[in-house]
């Protein structure tokens, strides 16, 4: 299918169409040129120059910055932390959101209330969710400490600070992120489930299919486009995670949660090393592009290309 088709024949061509087209395209074109394409060029360029703390560009240094940064062990740590974070967040967000949507699918008295509750974490977008968990994760007075003690994972006098624990810090931040993403995941999958024609379930029921079979062979194929959209959206969100990290761990302990976006920010605006920040920017872009390509391959429906 082509985006615009070449069948513009039903539009009566008029004199002045070109002028109208120019005026219509211009705002979007100027916007993406000035704030996406130009800054991409200008920040990539920084990678090849000496840049002082104030951002003044000095002399050309070739690939020196690039090789310096690519050899840094902390870059590998950041990549690993980002990958781990994505793997912890994306599948859980999708599966749990879909499960909630299935649970709230069929009508029931009062179901509207449950739907609002299940969507509600969308209101804690970004750093708000992290703020809510700061209190729960408090080492001595937090509900998480109490919960761990109740199930015997923690001794009665032990305190626990998950956010400064080498192993658990990233899991804690991921859990917060999954919780705050559940609302959107639930809404997206609820919307997708509404789009599945009821008749399919009715005829499957007549054929004696059970719930799981229907889910597997009707629901999942029918909501596949939404699964694709949600996978891409949640993966990108997880790759670009920043707010929760800044509020909860600031990249620590020992770079364990120093994900790419956070390292980029730290290099560019804290350490005043914009050349390093520029290399991180390119790495981040390459990661996003690779993920995009991989997901397109996996999720693409047949007969569905979007060429113009």
């Amino acid at each position, binding site marked *: 299918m082509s985006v*615009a088709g070449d069948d513009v024949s039903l539009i009566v061509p008029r004199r002045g169409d070109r002028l109208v087209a120019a005026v*219509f395209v211009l705002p979007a074109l100027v916007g993406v040129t000035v704030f996406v*394409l130009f*800054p991409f060029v200008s920040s990539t360029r920084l990678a090849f120059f000496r840049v002082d703390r104030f951002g003044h560009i000095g002399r050309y240094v070739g690939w020196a910055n690039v090789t310096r940064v690519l050899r840094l062990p902390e870059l590998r740590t950041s990549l690993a932390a980002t990958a781990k974070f994505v793997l912890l967040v994306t599948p859980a967000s999708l599966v749990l959101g879909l499960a909630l949507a299935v649970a709230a699918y069929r009508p029931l008295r009062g179901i509207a209330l449950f739907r609002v509750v299940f969507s509600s974490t969308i*209101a804690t977008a970004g750093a708000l969710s992290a703020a809510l968990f700061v209190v729960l994760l408090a080492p001595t007075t937090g509900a998480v400490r109490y919960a761990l003690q109740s199930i015997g994972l923690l001794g009665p006098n032990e305190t626990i600070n998950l956010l400064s624990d080498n192993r658990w810090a990233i899991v804690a931040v991921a859990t917060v992120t999954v919780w705050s993403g559940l609302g959107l995941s639930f809404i997206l999958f609820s919307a997708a489930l509404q789009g599945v024609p009821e008749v399919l379930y009715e005829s499957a029921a007549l054929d004696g299919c059970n719930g799981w079979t229907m889910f597997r062979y009707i629901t999942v194929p029918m909501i596949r486009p939404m699964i694709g959209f949600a996978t891409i959206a949640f993966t990108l969100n997880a790759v670009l995670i920043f707010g929760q990290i800044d509020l909860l761990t600031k990249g620590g302990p020992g770079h364990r949660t120093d994900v790419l976006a956070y390292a*980029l920010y730290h290099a560019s605006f804290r350490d005043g090393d914009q050349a390093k920040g520029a290399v991180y920017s390119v790495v981040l872009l390459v990661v996003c592009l690779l993920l*995009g390509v991989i997901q397109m391959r996996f999720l693409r429906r047949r007969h569905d290309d979007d060429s113009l």
Partner: protein
Amino acid sequence: MTTRSDHRRRRVGNAARYVVLGGLAMIMLAPVYLNAVNAVLPIKYRFAYPPPLIPHEPQLDGFRIAITQGSVLRYMVNSFVVSSLITVGQVVTSCLAAYAFTFLRFPGRKTLFWVIVASAVVPFEAVILGNYRTIVWLHWLDSYPALTVPFLASGAGVFLLTRAFRLVPRELIGAAQIDGCGHTAVLRNVVMPVARPTIAALAVLSFLGAWSQYLWPKLVINETSRRTVQMGIAQLSNGELNSFSVLSAGAILLSLPLLIILIMFQRQLVRGLTAGLVDR
């Protein structure tokens, strides 16, 4: 034919569903509830352990301080204005461009379309350094334009709307043109109403995206009076007001605007996303 045992089975089934849904709802609400209790906890119970499930001697100091000294209302207004401007900007620029790409013939149509759409795959964080330098160069630090102008156009928006616009029946447009409508009128009276679900979905996603922005405002805004919700919560958690109950109260207050919008538009939201995002 329904028999009595059918009725009973359904009632038992419904009861089971209520138990499951209720349990899930409690898990989802637990963090908010515990914070609500914490927000009304008097200072003398600050170190109470285990954390109380029911507030003793509740008082509203946390909320009062969050509002008076923490300026959370100001942050809400700022976020609302900024997110609304970004949403309107993205919808308008995307509608105009998508209309031209779908219905008008002009030189460079394909190239320009791909230039704009390609920009959608570039995450803002990857160009944040360049944008920061632009804002510094424009002397826009600490201003509302810094928060809004970089986001008024959206490659993803153009892509989404172009896919929706091409499904608008050409006959409708031809008829409107014969009735004497110019392109602006066709866009407003024919194309936009038909593509409304997709436009609504775009608006929802733009608004949410704008509302959750954290890093960019943190970089370009310093002045308290121009801070947004996300920066406000960061400020509260950095302990400038140094109290968990203020942090809890602030987080709850700052979550309210989106919650109210959600409750008001729940049904339209689901319907808009169904029709707008993936179906065609």
